[in-house]
């Protein structure tokens, strides 16, 4: 592996991050030179030097190898998380070393979990940076490196294969260069549209922009302590739900829909399951909440139920209600949604609907094969026959995911968390959802967890964001020779 090539590409990501830090410093400047200006400028300076250094020394390469691609993706994510905590650390407040690391990892992995007890105390510049990390994380740090990458062709595709799951890659029927354009178009367009709609719904420009970035990155970072519940505005909730739902759909499918192509959201089986799952869960939970008398009307119940379902399924984690107070059925359904999550090729995490659909079809086919042992049965999604390799990958991933959730639960429980907190925190971190139940409920945060569990949470977030195997492969790069 050519380490210097890997360092060069990571350097490009750092330069990009430095530019975002500078933009956040600009926000700080616009807000009467708030206390985040100095930390953001300092961080931007050191990050830029760190990123530019390899660019000066290492010449651009036309082609990168698979293992280099993996190293660039994982390395970029880890380095982004490290430099991302510089502004927090320099600013101070509630940010100790571990807390700053947690907030940074939570941002870049689009988890949206926080250790902050008083978010509103943060200066606007820092709040903007916090939302920016989730926005950058949403599209993938590597994606940005590739956009500004002068070398075209195979290198891009190679990196992108790692960034998205195998299934997501299969769903793209475009050339690699076109994929980049599609993603930028969809992501930027969605963010801008959400910002404008949120502004029209009653938010100020700053809140609208930060919430739009969080919603499109499916992270759930809010600028208010009470999250979206602070606004208590059904229009805002509706806009947010729309943005989150769209961000949870494969970007290629969104692009196809916008450009009038055939493989659009109305024809996609995966999108149908995704939307259907959310609608059914919302209705059941709303009925459950209404029958339990938590809300005076069914409409009110449906409002809160649908927002929480969309928020959890898309792995955003915004909140309009304290779900800890909800009945068991509602909690179980929300946990199910936070395991399945959105579609592959989107900014959401978790197992993903695509895998759920394939796994369900594999089970169905297994039953059929038992009835007709000589039958030749293929598994199709959206009309595409999935090979044995894909089916194996899906099942292996699901098993690995379950094992990881169980291991995470054990670690949380070992350090004194109750079973509900342990299990849901583990799911919320691996699936990059953010809030769970118990001590880490929708209106709570991770500040009360001991240091070791905060570190454990960040590890789970990284493993989940890099689709488990993307992270594990980093430790076996030498064996690829």
């Amino acid at each position, binding site marked *: 592996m050519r380490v210097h090539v890997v360092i060069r590409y990571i350097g490009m990501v750092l330069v990009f991050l430095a530019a975002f830090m500078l933009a956040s410093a600009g926000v700080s400047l616009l807000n009467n030179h708030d206390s985040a200006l100095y930390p953001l400028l300092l961080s931007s300076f050191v990050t830029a*030097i760190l990123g530019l250094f*390899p660019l000066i*020394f290492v010449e651009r390469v036309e082609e990168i190898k698979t293992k280099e691609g993996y190293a660039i993706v994982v390395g970029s994510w880890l380095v982004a998380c490290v430099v991302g905590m510089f502004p927090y650390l320099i600013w*101070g407040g509630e940010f100790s070393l571990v807390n700053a690391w947690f907030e940074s990892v939570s941002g870049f992995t689009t988890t949206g979990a926080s250790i902050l007890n008083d978010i509103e105390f943060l200066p606007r510049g820092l709040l903007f940076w916090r939302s920016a990390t989730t926005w950058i994380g949403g599209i993938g740090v590597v994606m940005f490196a590739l956009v500004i990458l002068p070398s075209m062709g195979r290198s891009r595709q190679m990196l992108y294969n790692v960034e998205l799951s195998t299934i997501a890659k299969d769903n793209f029927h475009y050339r690699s260069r076109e994929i980049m354009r599609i993603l930028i178009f969809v992501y930027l367009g969605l963010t801008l549209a959400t910002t404008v709609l949120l502004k029209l719904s009653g938010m100020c420009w700053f809140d609208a922009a930060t919430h739009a970035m969080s919603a499109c990155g499916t992270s759930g970072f809010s600028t208010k302590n009470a999250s979206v519940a602070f606004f208590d505005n059904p229009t805002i909730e509706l806009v947010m739900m729309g943005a989150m739902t769209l961000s949870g759909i494969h970007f290629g499918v969104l692009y196809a829909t916008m450009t009038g192509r055939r493989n659009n959201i109305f024809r996609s089986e995966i999108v149908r399951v995704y939307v259907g799952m959310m609608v059914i869960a919302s209705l059941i939970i709303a009925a459950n909440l209404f029958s339990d008398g938590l809300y005076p009307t069914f409409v009110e119940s449906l409002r809160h139920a649908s927002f929480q379902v969309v928020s959890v399924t898309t792995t955003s984690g915004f909140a309009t209600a304290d779900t800890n107070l909800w009945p068991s059925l509602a909690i179980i359904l929300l946990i199910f949604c936070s395991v399945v999550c959105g579609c592959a090729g989107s900014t959401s995490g978790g197992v993903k609907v695509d895998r759920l659909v394939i796994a369900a079809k594999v089970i169905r086919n297994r039953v059929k094969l038992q009835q007709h042992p000589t039958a030749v049965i293929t598994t199709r999604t959206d009309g595409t026959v999935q090979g044995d390799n894909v089916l194996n990958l899906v099942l292996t991933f699901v098993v690995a995911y379950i094992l990881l959730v169980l291991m995470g639960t054990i670690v949380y429980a070992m350090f004194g968390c109750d079973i509900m907190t342990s299990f849901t925190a583990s799911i919320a971190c691996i699936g990059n959802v953010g809030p769970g139940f118990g001590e880490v409920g929708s209106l709570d945060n991770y500040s009360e967890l001991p240091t070791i569990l905060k570190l454990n949470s960040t590890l789970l977030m990284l493993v989940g964001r890099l689709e488990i195997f993307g992270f594990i492969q980093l430790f076996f790069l030498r064996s690829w020779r």
Partner: protein
Amino acid sequence: MWKRIKALFAVKGIERRMRVAFTSIVLLLVFAGATSLLELERVSHDTEQILVASEQSVDVAGHMLAALSDHNDAIIYMAVVGDTSVRYREALRGSMLQLDATCERANELMPAVEHDGLNDTLAMYVERLNTLAEEYLEGRVYENVIRRRVSDSLATNLSTRSWYVDEYKVAYIDLSRQISRYMTDSQSVLSPKVNHLSHTARRSVTPVFISLLVMFIVVMMLYYFLKKLYVKPILRINRSLGDYLSYKVPFDESIACGDEIGQLRDRIDTLITKSNK
């Protein structure tokens, strides 16, 4: 100046890289140094402010107590001992002015927002004591006391001494208590500032630490790049050239780089080809 800076980076290839690399390191060093100096300056300034505030509040409280003592002495001489000479009247007036001035200064030093009601109470007690003294000086003590105690059976036994005990001494004790409270409160107001200072002192090291960490990484990268991109290729070219000269092994070094190292390889190759002809 700008031309000089431009000239510094005008050269290309290895030389430019070296210049940029060392400039980066120097910049980071200067940056770390400047940041630490600025932060130290800030911490030192904050510490000085706290010390000055502490000294000033103690000083004001001391002056207030001294003025109160003079006030009391003058009243005792006049109302209790019965010596109403000009000397004590002037001393009383002087101490009244002194009390007013120190009270005002105390208000300036400790903004009302930091301690609810303390400044108002202090001003109120000073005013009350000074009003009593003023009444005494103007000879309105008897009238006032009689008016206040019109139903009291002891009204006929009124004297300035009883006025001192019943009226003045109470106000005097109240004010001295208030000054004590001011002294303790002004120090407790500084406590969170000291805590904040200790907190920021720790934080002020962070940017320096981060700069040094980044510089360390940059130096490590520089070492790696120098070794990987320059030292190793030169050694390989040297070995290959040595092999060619000693054993006539064909000079075949494949170095994929467009800088001076690549040019050196190409020129050696050309030289060998020409010498073979």
